[in-house]
Each structure stands twice: as structure tokens, then as C-alpha cells.
């Protein structure tokens, strides 16, 4: 804890989030979609720990279900970005020459475009839906992994163990997966951890703008949007999802910081 407080605190927060997302909706029996107009805008109480929203729906259940969705979407997006980026970056570095140059130009063009704007544009064009949301968010982040993996593979590919594997007939795919990626695990894990935090915010922002998860499905972003109209009378509608987003991002940022320090020390 003393040697790497970020790692300790970050992993604790992330663990708590994961447990809340996995078990919370099971342990809290309230239905996040059940409307109860008698409880409209009810403040926090023993019956409803985080109060109720404008349609009397239990806020604790909605925050927990929203958390499950946020974590699931961000993890899926980061995994897809990682795989897509690693394949493109690794293949370009191994191929070298004109292929590598062409791929780098393509990545430069995508990087010249602001990431969040790309996600907004794609989400707007593809329309609502979870799969489309995942595609839009993946388009934001894959280039980071492509560049990281390409850079590392370029420096590692001249090492003797890679030459030996190539001499023994290893295909580029096998080279990448069995021999090069294990060496990249540290930096990739750090980038992925920061990435999850970033995608949680991006998904919340898209849902807030009406381009991600649409109501009545609970997402922290769309809950922030619907809560805004009642800020004066029911601030808990915005503070609950707001604190959830902030705590999640803080946890993943601290964990990423801690991992970076740990990887740096070992490397």
C-alpha cells in the first residue's frame, strides 16, 4: 500500500464497482423500470436509499443496473479496440515497407479527427442500439492500441528470439500472439485500464446527448439528462449518477496510474 498507493486504492474501487455491478441488481430487488407515480421525485428514505425519479422508479436499482451496463459496454469496447488495434498495428510492423507506411497514414487520418466527435458522428449515423454504440465507441480508441503495439513490435522484432521463431517457420500471426504480445502485456494493460475509464465517460456522454442508451433503459448518462429538469427540487437525480461516474473514472485512473508505476519498475 505504501509502495504503490494508487494501485491499492484504484484496485479496491474497481473491485467494489465490479461486485456492485455483478451482485447489486440481484441483491436489490427493486425493478429499475417499475413506475410508481406515488413516489414521484421521492427523496432518499429507508425504502428507497437513493430516492426515486420523476416516474417513481427506484434510483438505487437504476444506478446499479446502469453500472452493470457501463462496465459491460466499456469492457467490451476496450477488448475490441485492443484486438483490432493490436492486429492492425502488429501486422503493419511485421509487414514493414509500403504496407506499414500506408497503415500509418490511415491511422494518422483517423487520429487527425477528434475521437469523441468521431463517436458522435458514427452514433448519429448508425442510430440507437447497443451494438451500434459499441461500434461507435470502438472507432474512438483502436488507433491508440495500434500505435502502441506497432511501436513495441518494431523494437522487438529484431530480437534474437523473434528471429529464431521466424527461422523455425512461425507465421506472422503466431509470432504476434505467442512471442510478441506477452512482452507488450504491461503497457497494453495500462492503456486498457485508462481506456475503460475514458469509455465509461464517453458512453455516459453519448447517452446524455441522446445518442447512446435511450430511456427507459437506465444508463448513468441518460439519468443525468433526465434529472437536469428537476435539479432544484430533486438534486439526488443528478448527484447519484454523477457520483457513480466520477467514482468509476477515479478508480480506473488510479488503477492505471498504479499499473504504470508497477510496469515501469519491472521494465
Amino acid at each position: 500500500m505504501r509502495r504503490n498507493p494508487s494501485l491499492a486504492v484504484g484496485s479496491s474501487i474497481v473491485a467494489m464497482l465490479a461486485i456492485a455491478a455483478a451482485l447489486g441488481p440481484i441483491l436489490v430487488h427493486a425493478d429499475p423500470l417499475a413506475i410508481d407515480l406515488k413516489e414521484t421525485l421521492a427523496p432518499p428514505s429507508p425504502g428507497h436509499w437513493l430516492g426515486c425519479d420523476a416516474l417513481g422508479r427506484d434510483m438505487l436499482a437504476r444506478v446499479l443496473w446502469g453500472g452493470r451496463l457501463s462496465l459491460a459496454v466499456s469492457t467490451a469496447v476496450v477488448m475490441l479496440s485492443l484486438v483490432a488495434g493490436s492486429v492492425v498495428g502488429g501486422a503493419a510492423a511485421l509487414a514493414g515497407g509500403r504496407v506499414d507506411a500506408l497503415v500509418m497514414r490511415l491511422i494518422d487520418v483517423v487520429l487527425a479527427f477528434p475521437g469523441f466527435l468521431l463517436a458522435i458522428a458514427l452514433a448519429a449515423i448508425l442510430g440507437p442500439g447497443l451494438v451500434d454504440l459499441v461500434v461507435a465507441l470502438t472507432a474512438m480508441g483502436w488507433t491508440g492500441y495500434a500505435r502502441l503495439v506497432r511501436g513495441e513490435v518494431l523494437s522487438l522484432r529484431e530480437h534474437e528470439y523473434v528471429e529464431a521463431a521466424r527461422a523455425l517457420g512461425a507465421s506472422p500471426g503466431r509470432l504476434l500472439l505467442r512471442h510478441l504480445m506477452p512482452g507488450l502485456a504491461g503497457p497494453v494493460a495500462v492503456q486498457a485500464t485508462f481506456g475503460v475509464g475514458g469509455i465509461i465517460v464517453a458512453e455516459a456522454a453519448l447517452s446524455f446527448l441522446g445518442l447512446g442508451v435511450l430511456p427507459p433503459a437506465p444508463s448513468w448518462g441518460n439519468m443525468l439528462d433526465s434529472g437536469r429538469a428537476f435539479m432544484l427540487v430533486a438534486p439526488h437525480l443528478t448527484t447519484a449518477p454523477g457520483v457513480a461516474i466520477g467514482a468509476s473514472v477515479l478508480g480506473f485512473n488510479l488503477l492505471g496510474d498504479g499499473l504504470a508505476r508497477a510496469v515501469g519498475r519491472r521494465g
Partner: protein
Amino acid sequence: MTGYFVRRLAALIPVALGVATLTFALIHLVPGDPVTVMLGDTAGPADVAGLRQQLGLDRPLVVQYAEFLRGLTRGDLGESISMKEPVARLIVERFPATLELAGAAMLVAIALAIPLGLIAGANPGGGADMGAMGFAILGISVPHLCLGPLVMIVFSLKLGWLPLTGRGGLAHLVLPAVTMGTALAAILARMLRKSLILVREADYIRTARSKGLSAFAALMRHGLRNALTPVITLLALETGALLTGAIVTEMIFSWPGMGRLLIAAISARDYPLVEGCVLTFAFTYVVVNMATDLVYAIVDPRIRLLRA
């Protein structure tokens, strides 16, 4: 120096072309027919064909692309379907508001970052350093989306010090600028701290100290300029992100900028306006990144000489 600048400006053209092509590809190549999305499921085939012809979508893709590029060189971004006005005019009306917000956010970020970074970097490991960096990590982690409503509740609704939404005088600018500037301040403060810690170990600082200057005076007089170089670069790099971050902030505070225009265009399925707004944001991002390169070259002459 001029040669370097001219080369960097010339490099702007292929990047701008790439960004314009990506925007065109997004709107025209992504699966789904924008015309049926615009008109809805109940539209008849005659209406669909009519709108397709009006937008020029019935022509071959290559012709549409050529028309698109030709229009860009003339500053013609087409006409907005929902507002029945030239897209370029709508953008010119709204863009200054977004620039005003982004500029104010940068000022807030600099005003917060410099004292925070100095406090942390001058005495690393101390209590003030822990406090400043604790604030910084919070600032980075709380997104605009959460901070905006929070400051609205505290400073506008509960305390009544500042207006809630809209654009007007300086008072209207405070909450949105603070919302956007806090995360940037945190990032800049962390960079300034790291930079100052590195600079403290430099030989010229040791020389200044051996001549009798205090550690703090040596750092301020000789080290700060070098420590600020990466901070300036980071600031310029983050300016692009600041512009797109304005989209969410403008929606939270009902600020009448280009971000709100883009979201309104998306809601109205007004694809020419969406295309125009996306292009404007993207081009601004490219120009700002290019300006960063040029500023960096002015501040650190080694960059020009290395690249030459």
C-alpha cells in the same frame, strides 16, 4: 525558420483532405440510408426519390465526392434541411460562442494549473504536493458531465450567485468555463509538477544555487521557462479536445454554440448540417494541432533545427 513554417503549413493540405474524406465517408458510406432515416418509415417512394435528388444522392459517389470537395473550396457547405438556411451561415453565427467558451476554459485552466503545479513541484513529497495532486486526480476523474450539474446545483440553485444557463455577460461564462477548465487544469498541473521535478536536477540550477540563490529563486528565475515548454505543448494538444468537450458543456448550460447546433442537427436528421458541423470541428482541431507544432518550434528552437 520560414522554411520550417512553410513545410508544416504545406503538410496541412493532405491532412485536411484526409479529414474531409473521412467525414464524407462517414455520412455516405456507413450502412443505412440517410434519406429514409430523415423522412421516416411512412414516407412514400416519390418523397424519398425527390429528397434524394434534392440532396444529390442519386448521382454516382465519385461525382458526389468531387462536388463536395468543390463546395468546400468555395466555402459552400450546402443548405440545412431543418432550418432552410445555408449551413455555412449557421456555423459562422454559432462558432464564436464556442470559441468564447473554449477560450474562457483555457484561461481558467491556466489560472488554476500554474499555482497548483508550482506548489506541488517546488516541494515534491510534501503535504502541499499531496494536496495539490489529490485535487488534480479528482479534477481529471470528474468529467464535465458530472461537474456541470454539480456546480449548477451549488452555485446557481442553492447559493444563487451565478445564472443557471444561457449566454449573456461574464457571469454566464463562469460556470461553463470552470466546468470545462477544471479537468484541463488538473492535467496541466500534473505536467508542470513533473516538469519542475526534472528541471530541479539540471546543471544550470545547481550552478545558480552554488552562486547563492535559494532553491525556490533558482527554480523560478532559471527553471520555470524550461519547465513550461511541455506544459504549453500539452495545452495546445488539449485545445482540440477542449473544443469537442464543449459539445457536452453547451448542452448542459444551454450555451448557443456549435455543439448545440450539431446535436440539434442530429435530432432533426439534418445531414447537411451534421456534415458541416462535423467538418468545422474537425478542421479546427487540425488547425489547432498544426498551430501547436508551430508554437512548439518557436518556444524550442531545437525542434526546427532537428527537423530541418
